[in-house]
């Protein structure tokens, strides 16, 4: 018999170990579930880690109010199927109550505004471990983040003062009011995630696959036309066959032209692609070279 393990099995084993460590050592975890493919895979791994026992923690979605309806529907279906508990932290509510100022203008996005309701919900429910689906290959600030990433009482990340992380020994100790962000998919790449989705048959929102949609071009990216994104002069709405490579809210997530309707067709396109998923589809990273680091320091995902 062979004792070789495929890269997907090795990644799965590591992620399951991490998720179980959190539940064993931290009494109040929550899993951030946006309905995107990374959180879908993370949820799948979490279910596997404890089955046949039920998922031992609730889910949380930070709802910008500008989400794709297909993604919200998927979120609710998954939650119902698992019998899980879902907390929704609402950006709209935070804006209405004056706790967050909304960006103005045609390029306004609620991306950055998510940090406030996220941190408020963590404080309110006293979560001390927050699972996120971020991967180190996504972005260069994330490449330096720990699996167990410590946050102070303001939810801040201090990249220059991170705990060394050795072997598979994770340090989850913290004081009351502080918390840990935990990233079980740290060592996965976009391709690993898709290969795992194919292998495990993980369900995804329909917008990850080719569909007809009204779109327009902005800053070299193809944006979904919606009431949340007013057109600028010269911008024109056309209909195209597109799919999404990442799923944030409608104001900062772009799509790519694609005819891929199955997971294996998506994988074929990714292998041939010459642009990263965030480069192709995330307006939120394009503010500056360190846009992600800046947001992460404030307490972003």
């Amino acid at each position, binding site marked *: *018999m062979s*004792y*070789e*393990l*495929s*890269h997907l*099995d*090795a*990644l799965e*084993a*590591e992620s*399951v*170990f991490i998720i*179980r*460590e959190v*539940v*064993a050592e931290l009494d109040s975890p929550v899993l951030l579930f946006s309905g995107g493919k990374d959180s879908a895979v993370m949820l799948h791994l979490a*279910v*596997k*880690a*404890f*089955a*046949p*026992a*039920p998922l031992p923690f609730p889910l949380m979605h930070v709802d910008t109010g500008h989400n794709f309806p297909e993604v919200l529907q998927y979120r609710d279906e998954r939650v119902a199927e698992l019998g899980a508990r879902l907390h929704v932290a609402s950006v709209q509510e935070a804006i209405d109550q004056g706790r967050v100022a909304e960006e103005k203008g045609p390029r306004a996005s609620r991306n950055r505004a998510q940090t406030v309701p996220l941190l408020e919900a963590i404080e309110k429910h006293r979560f001390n471990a927050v699972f996120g689906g971020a991967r*180190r*290959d996504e*972005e*260069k*600030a*994330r*490449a*330096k983040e720990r699996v167990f990433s410590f946050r102070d009482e303001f939810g801040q990340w201090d*990249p*220059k003062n*991170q*705990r*060394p*992380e*050795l*072997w*598979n*020994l994770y*340090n989850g*100790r*913290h*004081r009351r009011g502080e918390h840990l962000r935990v990233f079980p998919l*740290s*060592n996965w*790449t976009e391709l*690993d995630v898709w290969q795992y989705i194919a292998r495990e048959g993980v369900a995804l929102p329909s917008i990850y696959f080719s569909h007809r949609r009204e779109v327009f071009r902005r800053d070299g990216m193809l944006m979904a036309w919606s009431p949340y994104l007013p057109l600028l002069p010269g911008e024109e709405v056309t209909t195209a066959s597109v799919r999404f490579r990442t799923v944030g809210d409608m104001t900062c997530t772009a799509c790519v032209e694609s005819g891929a309707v199955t997971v294996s067709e998506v994988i074929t396109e990714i292998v041939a*692609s*010459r*642009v*990263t998923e965030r*480069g*192709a589809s995330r307006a939120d990273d394009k503010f500056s*070279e*360190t846009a992600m*680091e800046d947001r992460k320091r404030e307490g972003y995902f």
Partner: protein
Amino acid sequence: MELLRFATAGSVDDGKSTLIGRLLHDTRSILEDQLAAVERTSRARGDEYVNLALLLDGLKAEREQGITIDVAYRYFATAQRKFIIADTPGHLQYTRNMVTGASTADLALILVDARKGVLEQTRRHAFLASLLRVPHLVLCVNKMDLVGFDVAVFERIREEFRQFSMKLDVADLSFIPISALGGDNVVTRSERMPWYQGSTLLHHLENVHIASDRNLIHVRFPVQSVIRPMSSKFPDYRAYAGQVLGGVLRPGDEVMALPSGFTTRIRELDLAGRPVAQAFPPMSVNVSLADELDISRGDMLCRPGNPPLVGQDLDAMVCWLAEGVSLLPGARFALKHTTRSARAQVKQLHYRLDVNTLSRDETSPRLGLNEIGRVTLRTTVPLFFDEYRRNRHTGSFILIDEATNATVGAGMINGPAV
């Protein structure tokens, strides 16, 4: 497709970032928008060439200061393997960073500038790789283009390093002459060094045999948690969740639980309800046993004839990772070993090791940041451990400062203290 984790180490300006950039570029792992961003930044900074190091330095402070602060993880894959690179900076906090990167590495890649030869830093990096027992070591002699691709230069460096490495515990050592800038012997074979008959770096990374690096003999299964659904659908399901750190487990095998010492048989192995025929490192599984025993987190399953060492007194090498606070005899810390947590007191600091000369300073009263020493520890509860050289996972621990909760020490167990 197998997974290979490797750590890179090098001295300042030896071309490590260029080499990693070259590996990523030539395996088509750098995509157009990443390259465009680097080109933009290079131009804005007035660099003469596209500075591939910018691909790797992600934090604001790193870009401003032109240095790498922290371990960065990089990913690429070929048709043979998926690779995880732990890129550890050579100068700042080198010990802390290299020890971190090396702790999970199957292979360490150390760079030498062909013009400078083996430096103090080279010896330091090689020593740390051997201390952390990284199974495979590759010395890349870089910048061969700047010494006219001279075989004599390469052989002189190889001989010098080989002499030094005899003092270390290195199981597998390879030497590759390269030019990261020109791509010679990185991904494609160099026509400018016909005297070199060995593998290119990528070919070596793709083919080095790592399957035997794990310990498949001594069964070690530290229990992470107990899975008990207590539902009408699974009224009797009770299994121990964990990751296999050594040996091979199969249904029917006799196992002993520690600390109780009771023996029973494995009834079933599964993950998420799917039966698993055999479990070996690093698989995460659920183990169901034939008898109901009192087993909880921090306990360990092993084979009855082949148990780990059990004890509260450890002889260990400790690498100190904390600024400001030192390791002093008498100090107490929280200790994490496998899935077991304890408190530990430093009974004795035997010596501080000079990582440049490998000499022992037996008069040192403390260990400061980035220093390594040999200590005796006493723990509040017994640990189930192996010598680090037998099993990197059951032989390692971390020390945590109970006041700040910071991870302050990394430990490798030599054996029980006598």
